[in-house]
């Protein structure tokens, strides 16, 4: 089945130690998104790629960066994780704009813990 796959499902890192989360998709969608979801809260958009074009949300901390080397893969890099960055990180994909509203398809997330 076509899907959005996030690895790993659980990630533990140390305070200040860089960490990378990965997302891959078999849907061949133009747009890939990264959301942060803290416990019992709504998903919060960090940034998204439309093809190779990167779109950062204004309130996304500089500590968070992303790479999209090709259509299928997207990475979230946290340069110096703080305790407040512990959360579920969700990747989503959708077809591109200009084709009407397109649903976003989510992966099952990576739960990040900071020691």
């Amino acid at each position, binding site marked *: 089945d076509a899907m959005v796959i996030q690895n790993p499902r659980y990630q533990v890192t140390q305070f200040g130690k860089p960490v990378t989360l990965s997302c891959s998709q078999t849907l061949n969608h133009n747009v890939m998104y990264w959301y942060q979801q803290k416990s019992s809260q709504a998903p919060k958009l960090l940034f998204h790629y439309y093809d190779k074009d990167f779109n950062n949300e204004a309130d996304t901390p500089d500590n968070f960066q992303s790479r999209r080397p090709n259509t299928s893969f997207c990475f979230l890099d946290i340069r110096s994780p703080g305790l407040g960055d512990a959360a579920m990180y969700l990747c989503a994909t959708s077809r591109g*704009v200009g084709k009407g509203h397109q649903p976003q398809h989510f992966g099952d997330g990576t739960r990040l813990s900071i020691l």
Partner: protein
Amino acid sequence: QQQVKQSPQSLIVQKGGISIINCAYENTAFDYFPWYQQFPGKGPALLIAIRPDVSEKKEGRFTISFNKSAKQFSLHIMDSQPGDSATYFCAAGTGGGNKLTFGTGTQLKVEL
């Protein structure tokens, strides 16, 4: 103005009953209103979505009611089942839906 307010925060419904979750928005530029269902340990999954040119959309047991003048929309789950127990998020989007603003979520529990 970008907020989407969702209520209630939690909801307990008896099996076979109707679950109703409400959302309200301020930004009149929103033109796409999806509902997502999220089970523990899983990502949100699109349940049903509506555009503001219709007042109601029904898919199986799930219905969205939309009131454009009041800037409110709601999800109705008919004949609620224990398998419907999950967290439900409303959302609102503009310009092709690339950017969704999510509500704060409603934790639904359907009891036998």
